[in-house]
């Protein structure tokens, strides 16, 4: 696909989004939009993971951890109460820059906390640094090391979240303020803002999709694909395989964190259930169903499966369903369910190439 043709799906998706919204409003089923919005934020994680697994050929079992680092950082910064330090120099300085804002909590007390924008930046910086710290040593090694290291990272984050007082332990953090983007636009979970948020979420997802598609078709994307086909050959042709893979890993962690931040502000809370290993595995399963190196497949499956899960369709077998999906895809259809027969998928991590 070259030129503008690769953006047709974006236009089609945008039309679909509008049609769906109108249909849901007409059918008096607007409440579905809440779960679709949440699924869209989860889909950001999936898109990032798809870049990592499908194009850089590395598996991460810690994306729920990155999601949580983003969400929790933002939640902590926007709910911490700085009133006691209101007149100290750093806070006064932050106030003059507009980095903090004052509001009233449920009980009418004054709360002085960081605004969501600086919190978002902080969340992304923290996540990026952590991903860099894990990726620097581990990406250099081939195969399964990143999967284990990220699994361990996810477990640590889970323990920290459960153990740390400031992170609310098992209760998580609630009463996270809405995220005022610009003017009247805000990420807010109240029914009043439902339609607006539906469009905000989709706009974010589609913008990220366009960026991801551009990345895949850019120099880095071609380099990543060549790494897939034959890492040694790519290396000998001057592709810095290590840096490409590391950059993709950090980028995918950042997308997970972005999803975490936005969903936290949308829900107004975040809890330890977002950080479990199962959540990470779920993202991997969704990428597998979408077809690994298939961004559209990953995005659609990310929204569909998360939507079904949020609606409670899978009942108590929620996690088992995703485990079963993962195995079934790997056993029978490593190219994903959406693969158009005859069209050669760019390349797949899983297409019979050994990593050792």
């Amino acid at each position, binding site marked *: 696909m070259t030129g503008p043709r690769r953006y047709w799906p974006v236009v089609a998706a945008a039309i679909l989004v509008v049609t769906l919204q109108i249909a849901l409003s007409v059918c008096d089923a607007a409440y579905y939009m809440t779960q679709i919005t949440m699924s869209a934020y989860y889909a950001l994680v999936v898109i990032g993971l798809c870049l990592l697994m499908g194009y850089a050929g590395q598996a991460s079992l810690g994306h729920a951890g990155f999601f949580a680092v983003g969400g929790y950082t933002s939640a902590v910064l926007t709910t911490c109460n700085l009133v006691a330090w209101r007149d100290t120099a750093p806070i006064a300085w932050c106030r003059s820059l507009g980095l903090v804002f004052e509001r009233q909590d449920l009980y009418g007390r004054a709360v002085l906390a960081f605004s969501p924008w600086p919190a978002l930046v902080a969340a992304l910086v923290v996540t990026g640094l952590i991903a860099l710290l894990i990726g620097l040593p581990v990406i250099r090694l081939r195969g399964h090391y990143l999967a284990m290291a990220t699994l361990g990272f996810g477990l640590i984050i889970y323990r920290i979240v459960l153990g740390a007082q400031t992170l609310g332990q098992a209760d998580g953090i609630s009463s996270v303020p809405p995220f005022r983007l610009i003017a009247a636009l805000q990420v807010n979970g109240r029914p009043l803002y439902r339609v607006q948020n539906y469009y905000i979420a989709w706009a974010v997802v589609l913008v990220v999709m366009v960026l991801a598609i551009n990345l895949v078709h850019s120099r880095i994307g071609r380099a990543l694909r060549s790494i897939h086909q034959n890492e040694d050959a790519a290396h000998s042709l001057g592709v810095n395989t290590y840096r490409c893979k590391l950059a993709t890993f950090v980028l995918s962690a950042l997308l997970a964190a972005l999803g975490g931040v936005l969903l936290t502000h949308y829900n107004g809370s975040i809890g330890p259930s977002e950080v479990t290993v199962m959540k990470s*595995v779920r993202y991997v399963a969704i990428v597998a169903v979408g077809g690994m190196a298939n961004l559209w497949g990953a995005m659609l499956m990310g929204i569909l499966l998360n939507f079904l899960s949020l609606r409670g369709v899978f009942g108590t077998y929620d996690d088992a369903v995703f485990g079963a999906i993962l195995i079934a895809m790997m056993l029978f259809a490593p190219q994903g369910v959406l693969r158009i027969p005859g069209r050669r998928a760019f390349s797949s991590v899983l297409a019979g190439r050994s990593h050792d």
Partner: protein
Amino acid sequence: MNLAQVVQYCLSGVTVGSVYAVVAIGFNIIYSTTGIINFAQGEFLIVGAMTAISLSRVVPLPIAVLLAVLVTTVVGGLVERVFIRRVRDASILRLIVITIGVSILLREGMLHVWDEKVRSLPYFSGTEVSSISLLGAHISPQVLWVLGVCAVIVAGLTLFFRFTLTGRAMRACADDRMAARLCGINDSWMVTLSFMLSAAIGALAGCVISPVTQTQYDMGAPLAIKGFTVAILGGLGNSMAAVVAGLLLGLLETFMVSQMAVAYKEAVSIVVLLLVLVFRPSGLFNRREVSALRTAP
């Protein structure tokens, strides 16, 4: 910290460390014959312990443990037969993703069979309050059971791989699968056997540690991470080094916990893992990543 405390911490570190070592050896056995890191290794311990807990209500404890080991062995064999063998020519990453899926299915299966309750096997000898004094430290007799059983597992495996025909055939497969096949070794059976063996030692370790740490359906993943850390620390495929590495990690973890909050216990092993991956990815004992199953030093 006085002597009694040091002894106490050492013993407790060695106890958990020996279990990590057994998990690591389980990783090594499968890694050597197939190149797969089996993410479901931790689940084998929990399946074994849970089965034994249920069976111990109807049959005497030794028989319950024996049956549990058998059941888990069968589970391990089935995992290989049903999931791994079907796609054995696929890439390693795909096989590893399958083992991740298997671990989820096992965990969720256990959740539905045994619910979320924390359970434990009865103490093998004595009760939870009986203790033996050693240099001023007090240890539960179960600690001796753990150490003894783990030692027997390691010794037994060493003998098995060195002196029995099947053990040698497995080592041959680990060295060079094609050459082994040409010599008339049934290599696919050896792969199944490696899964069964890993499951069996995992189940046994899960049973002896159950009275001390108790057992819950989702305890497999942390155990797997630690076992993997130990396996990497010792050098993948090097089982004797895994024992040393296991004890090291166990001691390190216990002494760290004495200094900081228990909540961060898990962090110790992952920090160790990352450090090893940075500085010595081939393991502490300076062997290159060997695919051979050399249990002899």
